[in-house]
């Protein structure tokens, strides 16, 4: 059996394609059913805004890859031409390496982002609950969780923010701790304001949008489950908020020092975090002098992001090494597992020969006492074990499927193991009850 990965991600497909092929959480069980109908009944479907990937087990990986692509395109009503060139197909160790890198955050748009590990866990949980997963997939995903956790704890890859929005959230957390009780207000409804609102609204208690463009404000409010206030009421909204992100296109300052002083009088010393993403600036620089206000502008945030990016390079190299170790361990396990049927057949064959010889020699051994007969049995058993030790180890150490298949085939032919299996089957048939009832 082979592990197969078929998917596309932000590295290979633009947003429009990812949107069209993406599968929401509620659709996952149905999609897994659809894959099962095509013979892919041991699969995990990972679909986030940045990637859609299917991990599955298959005897014929090429054919299975094609079937998975067919399923995904049919299921989402997308033509094959639309996604050609955006798909990648990986097998065995390459597929495992890919999953481990994804779980570690090494394949993310923002390297080291912490959310992806939770998404991988959710995908695996959904697959186990919907249809159950086999031992290879189970071990693969538990390896992914373990590597994701180790990379975060041992390399510091997730420390430090590497996008402006993420840096803003990190700074806000350093001031307020948990943001669950904080109120967030955004001035403006353009792209910068939208991205920040999208990033913050998941963490804060409430989101308010103050903009001159009521229509755009309404659209953004619907996206982030927030409310819109009139531009003239922005200072009132600010007084009730703890975090402000200002990203308007105004050529003038929209929050002066005097405005902020007035706002602070109602807050009884509670701190306020202000991020000014506008160019030219929206918030007067004098505001930074006020004790309760932590004011950051776009250059301050860029500085933090650059510093974190540089710091992450070492962590990335360390994380890649951890991933490689995990892939080697997992693939070693998979290889040794592939050798098991041949090893078992070989041992059965040798044991059968040993038993037959002991039976043949039984009359000549009759003169021996019970202890001596037991000794003979023990010696022959140890001989067989020693003879089989080296081929077993050699077989388990083979590191590619083709060589493994060739060696297994050679062993099966040289020792007539398939005949042995046939004999076993025949034995089993003859020992079945005469009425043919199941045992």
């Amino acid at each position, binding site marked *: 059996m082979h592990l197969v990965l078929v998917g596309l991600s932000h590295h290979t497909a633009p947003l429009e394609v990812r949107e069209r092929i993406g599968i929401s959480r509620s659709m996952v069980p149905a999609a897994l059913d659809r894959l099962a109908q095509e013979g892919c009944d041991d699969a995990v479907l990972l679909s986030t805004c940045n990637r859609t990937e299917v991990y599955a087990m298959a005897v014929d990986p090429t054919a299975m890859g094609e079937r998975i692509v067919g399923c995904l395109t049919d299921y989402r009503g997308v033509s094959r031409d639309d996604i050609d060139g955006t798909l990648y197909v990986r097998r065995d160790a390459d597929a495992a390496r890919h999953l481990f890198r994804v779980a570690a955050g090494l394949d993310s748009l923002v390297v080291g982002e912490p959310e992806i590990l939770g998404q991988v866990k959710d995908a695996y949980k959904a697959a186990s609950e919907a249809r159950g997963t086999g031992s290879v997939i189970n071990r693969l995903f538990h390896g992914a969780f373990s590597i994701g956790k180790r990379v975060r704890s041992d390399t510091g890859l997730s420390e430090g923010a590497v996008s402006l929005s993420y840096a803003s959230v990190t*700074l806000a957390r350093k001031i307020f*701790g948990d943001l669950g009780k904080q109120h967030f207000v955004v001035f403006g409804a353009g792209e910068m304001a939208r991205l920040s609102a999208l990033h913050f609204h998941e963490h804060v208690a409430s989101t308010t949008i103050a903009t001159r463009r009521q229509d755009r404000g309404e659209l953004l409010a619907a996206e982030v489950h927030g409310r819109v206030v009139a531009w003239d009421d922005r200072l009132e909204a600010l007084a009730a908020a703890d975090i402000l992100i200002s990203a308007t296109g105004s050529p003038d300052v929209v929050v002066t020092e005097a405005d902020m002083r007035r706002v602070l009088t109602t807050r009884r010393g509670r701190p306020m975090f202000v991020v000014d993403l506008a160019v030219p600036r929206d918030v007067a620089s004098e505001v930074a002098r006020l004790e309760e206000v932590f004011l950051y502008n776009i250059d301050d945030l860029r*500085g933090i992001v650059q510093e974190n990016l540089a710091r992450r390079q070492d962590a990335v190299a360390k994380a890649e090494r951890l991933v490689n170790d995990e892939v080697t361990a997992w693939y070693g396990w998979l290889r040794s597992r592939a050798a098991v049927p041949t090893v078992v057949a070989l041992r059965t064959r040798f044991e059968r020969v040993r038993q037959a010889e002991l039976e043949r020699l039984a009359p000549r051994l009759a003169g021996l006492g019970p202890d001596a007969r037991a000794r003979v049995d023990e010696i022959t058993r140890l001989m067989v074990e020693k003879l089989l030790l080296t081929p077993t180890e050699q077989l388990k150490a083979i590191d590619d499927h083709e060589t493994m298949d060739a060696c297994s085939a050679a062993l099966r032919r040289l020792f007539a193991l398939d005949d042995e299996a046939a004999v076993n089957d025949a034995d089993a048939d003859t020992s079945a009850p005469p009425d043919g009832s199941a045992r």
Partner: protein
Amino acid sequence: MSLALLYAVACAAYVWHFASQKPLAGRVATGLLLVSVLVHTFELGMYTMELGVPPMAGRTGAISTFVWMLAVSYLSIEVSTDERGIGIFVTPLLVALQALVAHGEMPTDVPRYFATPFVAVHVGALLFAYASFALACVIGITYMLLFRELKRRTPGMFFQRLPSLQVLDRMNMRAVWIGWLLLTIGLVGGALWLRDVSAQMTNDPRLPHMTLADPKILMAVVTWIVYGVLLASRRWAGLTARRAAWLSAVGFAIVLLNFLPVAYFFARSHNFA
């Protein structure tokens, strides 16, 4: 000396944790501090069994008990918040104070005055209060360090390693509240003891000095007022967290003045050792 050494090893582990940020280092640091506290508890327990009261009389006993209380208070905060970032600031204080009394003699006998419940409440509550204020001071200093980094827009070492400002503020206020309540209990306990003992021992030369005019008593009352004002203004007057942190550090400076120089050179009422 062995106790100071144990605390020093725990302190080194906290430095290792602060530098490496490894969870293992944090667990090792907590474990070592816990071992130090247990050994310290055993030692103080033995003295208590020997004397019949905790060894709080005299400089060595009082400071060692104070160190133990500070360590216990810090450990309880660490366990309840799962934050180890301030361990690096607290443990050097434990090492320094314990080393200060390492060669001192622990009391072998206690004055009769100490064998009363009021004294146990008075001294025990005050030492615990001072330990809480020490903790609040350390937390306040770390608050100001992080505040400065955030305000200057240069997140660095403290940004990476300390808990959020809000968490530090909450820890600081909790320590001040506990300290202030214990200080109140301690002062009331002292006053009740004085009323009791004055009736029985009118010829003791120290008793006439046990008034507000005595520097040690005055400083204790000033400490109570400073922390009381801090708590009241934080609650009702909108005192900012940074000023509260600063005040908690200043308050502890008064405590230290009272604990060391005032007690040795100026006080005429509290010389029992």
